[in-house]
């Protein structure tokens, strides 16, 4: 080691300095993300009260007003409805769909992953093949097939998104649990005669919570994107209920004369998704045990 000490030493200093920088920057990104989400959520919750327009109020004479016309900050849509009002109401729906889809898919993924990981054997293998089967569909295909035949309501869209995005979490949980299940504390719990469910959820699950939180955060981002995709293709949430995705749905048709119809909700989606990804990334670094060792 000592023979090659000098170049390593140089690098080590470099490392140390950059590492601080990196952590700082990483956390800053996560903080920015968090701040943006707080602002967005706040705007979506309070915005509709502050604006002079109702998101459903139609005023055909005022259609296609460009942004900053009168009190229409973001302009109006083809029915003369205020886009800002719709954007915030849509945000409520898109964020809620993203959040609940995350909760549901995390629940499904955790239960399946923990069962497969804890019992292993044939049951575990069968469950994981089931996970693989779901993963073999490109999720957008499966999502569209489902959405094409189920009456689209925010609740159903949430369920559909959850049904197509739980596999990642199942895999992560399964791997974690599998590596934990032969550990001493599990053995001890078994000897004490604790029920399997108790061991799984009380003893094992808390140890896997880090990766689950990271995956869950990224799932929110994914779910918001998926809602946008499905609604854009016309299979998602139906008007007059606005969602960020379905606000974009008709926008392509008016791209040349009213580009703000496309730009405003698109920016909102990108902001929200980026923020969640930033947070997820920051969490990953913060929770990653290895990052402290190396």
């Amino acid at each position, binding site marked *: 080691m000592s023979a090659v000490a000098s170049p390593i030493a140089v690098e080590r200093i470099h490392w140390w300095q950059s590492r601080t920088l990196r952590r700082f920057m990483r956390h800053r990104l996560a903080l920015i993300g968090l701040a943006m989400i707080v602002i967005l959520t706040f705007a979506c919750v309070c915005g509709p009260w502050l604006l002079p327009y109702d998101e459903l109020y139609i005023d*055909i004479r005022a259609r296609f007003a460009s942004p900053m016309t009168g009190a229409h900050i973001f302009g109006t849509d083809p029915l003369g409805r205020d886009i800002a009002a719709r954007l915030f109401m849509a945000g409520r729906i898109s964020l809620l769909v993203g959040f609940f889809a995350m909760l549901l898919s995390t629940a499904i993924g955790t239960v399946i992953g923990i069962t497969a990981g804890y019992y292993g054997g044939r049951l575990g293998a069968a469950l994981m093949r089931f996970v693989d089967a779901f993963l073999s569909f490109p999720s957008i295909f499966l999502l569209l097939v489902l959405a*094409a035949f189920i009456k689209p309501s925010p609740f159903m869209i949430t369920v559909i998104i959850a049904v197509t995005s739980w596999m990642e979490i199942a895999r992560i949980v399964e791997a974690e649990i599998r590596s934990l299940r032969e550990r001493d504390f599990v053995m001890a719990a078994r000897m004490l005669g604790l029920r399997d469910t108790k061991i799984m959820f009380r003893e094992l699950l808390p140890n896997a919570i880090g990766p689950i939180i990271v995956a869950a955060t990224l799932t929110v981002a994914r779910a918001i994107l998926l809602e946008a995709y499905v609604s854009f293709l016309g299979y998602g949430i139906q*008007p007059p209920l606005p969602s960020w995705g379905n606000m974009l749905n*008709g926008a392509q*048709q008016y791209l040349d004369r009213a580009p703000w119809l496309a730009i405003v909700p698109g920016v909102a989606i990108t902001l929200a998704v980026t923020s969640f990804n930033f947070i997820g990334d920051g969490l990953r670094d913060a929770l990653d045990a290895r990052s402290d060792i190396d």
Partner: protein
Amino acid sequence: MSDKEVTVFTHPTRRQALTLMMAAGSAGLFMPNILGKGEAQAAPPAKPTGKVIIGFSQEPTVFNPHMPHIEVDEGVSFSIFDPLFGIGPDGSFYPALAREVPSVENGGISADGLTWKIKLRDGVKWHDGKPFTAEDVKFTLELLVDPNFRSWRKTGHEHVRELTVVSPTEITWKMAVAFAPYASILAATFIVPKHAFDGVADKNTAPFNNAPIGTGAFRWGNRVAGDHIELEANADYFGDGPYLERVIYKYIPDLTVLYTQFKTGDIDVIGLQYITPDHYDEAKSLDGKKVNVVPMATVESFSFNMEKPQFKDPAVRKALYAAIDKQTIIDALYYGLPTPTESYMPQQSFYYNPDLPKHEYNMETAEKLLDDAGWELGSDGIRAKDGVKLSFTNSTTAGNHIREQVQQYLQQSFKELGIEMKISNLPPAVMWGDYWMMSQFDSVVVGINFLTGADPDTSDYMKSTSSAAKGGAGQNTWQYANPTVDKLLEEGGTIFVPEERKKIYFKIQETVRNDLPLLPLFQYAIVRGHKAGVDGVEPNINVRIDSWNVASWYWAS
């Protein structure tokens, strides 16, 4: 063939000039390309020259014209095949593979309408060089009722009996019942070659179905699936034309892109679904393009499921009608293109009744109607009567943007009256499945072409025995039941003299306007366009597609 002969089957033409041209048709020269060419235009080229690209927003995929298909498929069929006789823009028939349009006067049809005799054109060749004969006609009519063949329409053909080939150029048959709409059905029945199905075990998968052989002005070239279909001029065509070397049907799945490509000149003719209303103003002023608004036979309506308790009271239907601001919908959302209407019958039809009561948008009238009928506002702001709440869902195809806007606009108007309308749009496959056919909806916004060709018979839509939800076989999804209408429809189907039929259909329209099973909103108008250099493009309200006379299109030099 006299003026009167033409009228026997269809109805008299309103344009005398055209009728005179029809007379010329009996000489065997008459082809669709002559129709409607009122003004003097550059003469067509001596031999087929150039190519025309027609853009469609849906992809033609069915090339056997007798299998289940959609409108754009007919666009291709019109180029490749011919019917015995076709139907022109004014609703009169012109002979195609038949030497003349059969009528009582020329002996083509017996006075009771039960015996038919068709004389065929001599010397017509299929694209593969084989001669066209009466056997092909017989084969076609039999194919349509073949139980093993996925025939898309048996209506009318199922009455045909004793098909007899008298000679290669003559065929006769008997009808089990007198059925006046059959002429219109035949005008939409393309003749296909018998020899293409020789030795084919399953006619549903015959090679012909993907490489059709016809008698038409253009022969099958090639198809790049998902993209375009290319047809080539048929030099042996029996009529005038074709004047184009090639016709290309290009599939462009997005209406905005379709329009953009028309604007940039990538496509020469913009076909189905045409130019979107919001682009009309811009399109009008495009250089080197001819753009015009053309009426279509489709009527947009707000349709009720008459068996739902909310809609049983005629006062509710009348009140809803009064609460619809038709003019604003047409002017603002459809850019003033469609025509308001009171009837399900297209206004260009000979059978259209122009004297129906005019709709008036008046919220007070609507309110009064509901008040007088005893629909009282509840504490939730919604009217109710005898425990029935005036609340219902309204559905249409998800993704139809303008229609979705109309729904939301109506929702707001109805709400002011204390009527709750919930929008519940469905993907097309679900919407037009059992939901529609078995009358599972409350109300829908739908555009329907009620006619077959120019024939005014609407029994399948309006007879009380045509509701599938009640075990019927038709498409009376409104579950509309009025004995007067039933009787009139029965009568109208057996009368062959247009002037007499007219009285009956006037009465039917009056009754339907009064009963309001559907609130007629407007008759569609579409914005068509083609390059100024393309001559011969002629709209025809009696067919579903604009390339019906592509044989007579040419580039003005």
